[in-house]
């Protein structure tokens, strides 16, 4: 039994099932992300935990206590909204103090805790400002401070970084993780950004059409995606149609190495391969020859679209300083056998 558990939690709006039989157990102090495209039910799940949406079915327990029907004001959870939902007519300090005020914490104690938490999120000098006088990143940290100051058993984050620009978003990811580590609060974050989910979570829950389809540590999710949807949604993935024969995946005229789990001889299969697992070599020295169709420089790495007899394959290579193969050049693709996974198409097409 986890610290926070969801048992066959469902939400039906009219004839639309937003969340379907969701089961999840979150350990104390864990950082769990709900990842999925918009409309997959991740936000509805979060709102049910917060008490803002009433579940149609199922139970939510917190530290052994059933809170399924408890009012949001009595759950005591900390929530950071996508819009931050700061109180525009209150200063930063007043915003943060609001929850403590509701808990009838004495003024002196309140001031001390507000000061402490604003220090934690590096906003101490901004205590007397109004939200409109702050930047996006600062507002976001006010929202986090306001949610954390009440020392909630669980912190819920609804797309906390989506309103920030790319650079700030990256900084705030690490900042968010730092803050969460230092207070040790069990955290559930909803996001549609796979990079965000992978970089800061202990575990990632992928949701598709109201269902949880995989719950795993970020690197396992990336390396062993359970469904075709996950493999394409989390990172980039090459998918090659093949036939499993003699311990290799035969695609057209070439036989490619890969790891397969109990595939019958001659069965149709899908070979999945991450672009960064592929090495570019001089033509003729790899598993597969091809020609660079296009090339993109992305700073820390290069991205190639390589045309091969079995289709276009995406390859990424770290930037080593020199200039790699250019457009139109012939290259060979090579990869260690254990970095390619071969699965039955039915399983691969489960989504």
């Amino acid at each position: 039994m986890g610290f926070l558990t969801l048992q066959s939690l469902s939400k039906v709006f009219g004839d639309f099932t937003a969340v379907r039989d969701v089961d999840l157990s979150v350990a104390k102090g864990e950082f769990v992300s709900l990842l999925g495209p918009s409309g997959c039910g991740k936000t509805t799940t979060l709102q049910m935990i917060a008490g803002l949406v009433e579940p149609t079915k199922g139970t939510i327990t917190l530290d052994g206590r059933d809170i399924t029907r408890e009012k949001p004001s009595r759950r005591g959870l900390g929530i950071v909204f996508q819009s931050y939902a700061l109180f525009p007519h209150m200063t930063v300090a007043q915003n943060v103090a609001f929850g403590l005020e509701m808990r009838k914490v004495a003024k002196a104690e309140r001031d001390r805790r507000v000061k402490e938490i604003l220090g934690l999120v590096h906003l101490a000098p901004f205590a007397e400002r109004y939200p409109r006088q702050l930047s996006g990143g600062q507002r976001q940290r006010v929202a986090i401070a306001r949610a954390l100051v009440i020392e909630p058993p669980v912190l819920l984050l609804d797309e906390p970084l989506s309103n920030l620009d790319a650079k700030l978003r990256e900084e705030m990811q690490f900042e968010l993780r730092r803050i969460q580590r230092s207070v040790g609060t069990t955290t559930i974050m909803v996001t549609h950004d796979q990079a965000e989910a992978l970089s800061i979570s202990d575990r990632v829950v992928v949701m598709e059409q109201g269902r949880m389809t995989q719950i795993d540590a970020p690197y396992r999710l990336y390396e062993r995606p359970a469904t075709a949807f996950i493999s394409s949604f989390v990172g980039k993935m090459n998918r090659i149609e093949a036939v499993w024969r003699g311990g290799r995946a035969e695609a057209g005229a070439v036989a490619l190495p890969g790891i397969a789990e109990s595939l019958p001889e001659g069965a149709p299969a899908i070979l999945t391969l991450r672009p960064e697992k592929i090495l570019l070599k001089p033509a003729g020295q790899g598993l597969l020859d091809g020609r660079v169709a296009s090339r993109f420089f992305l700073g820390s790495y290069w991205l190639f679209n390589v045309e091969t007899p079995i289709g276009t394959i995406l390859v990424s290579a770290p930037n080593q300083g020199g200039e790699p193969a250019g457009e139109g050049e012939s290259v060979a693709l090579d990869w260690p056998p254990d970095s390619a996974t071969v699965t039955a198409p039915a399983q691969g097409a489960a989504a």
Partner: protein
Amino acid sequence: MHRNGPIALFFHGLVVAFVLAPLVVICLVAFTPENTLSIPTTSFSLRWFAAIFEHPDFVQSFYNSLWLATLAATISILLAIPAALAIDRYDFPGRDALNGLFLSPLIIPHLVLGVAFLRLFALIGATGSFFWLVFTHVIVVTPYVMRLVMAALSGMDRSAEQAATTLGASHWTVFRRITAPMILPGITGGWLLAFINSFDELTMSIFVTSPQTVTLPVRMYMYATESIDPMMAAVSALMIALTAAAMLVLDRAFGLDKILVGQK
């Protein structure tokens, strides 16, 4: 930025002149030293402003109107806030009907309302009561207040209320600490608009006032039907000044566009 051509500018100027000219003339006439309605040519005089204060009935009517407008606007706000919250936040049977009912006084001519109330008050024996006069004004100004409060409510970020709830605030606390301050511009704007509308309402008031409760516009109308002298102009000038001052306050505090158009 789209710019107006010379013809458009000319017509804009014409319209503005057309609207403002009578007000300017009235204000000028108010300062005449003559006994007739005339634009002062030789010198300015405050004698007609002084004359107002020699008519205690005018002063009394001014206070009547002031009290009436204050009470009507305040009561209207107190009714409109819960009504607007209910219509904005909840879906219930008769919701649209209720919304229509609150806005309907806007489309019924005040003349019709005046006659109807006159008849009603005669029936229930309430003729001439100040209380019932306030009642009629509340009905007439409520649509304005409703519109502004509803616009403020639909423009506010609901998640701030949810945030307050999850931080442990009760419904009432959320309203008092979060919702009310956030829709305050709508409330204040609604109150001022209601006040101004009530203060210069004439058509309906003619029917429902009694000698004890005569409002300033009605008093002016009665006076003007009997005699035309520059004192009317002086009273008008004072009312224009008062209205302009109120509008100025409104604009400075919240921006007129925001309040009247209901834009955030």
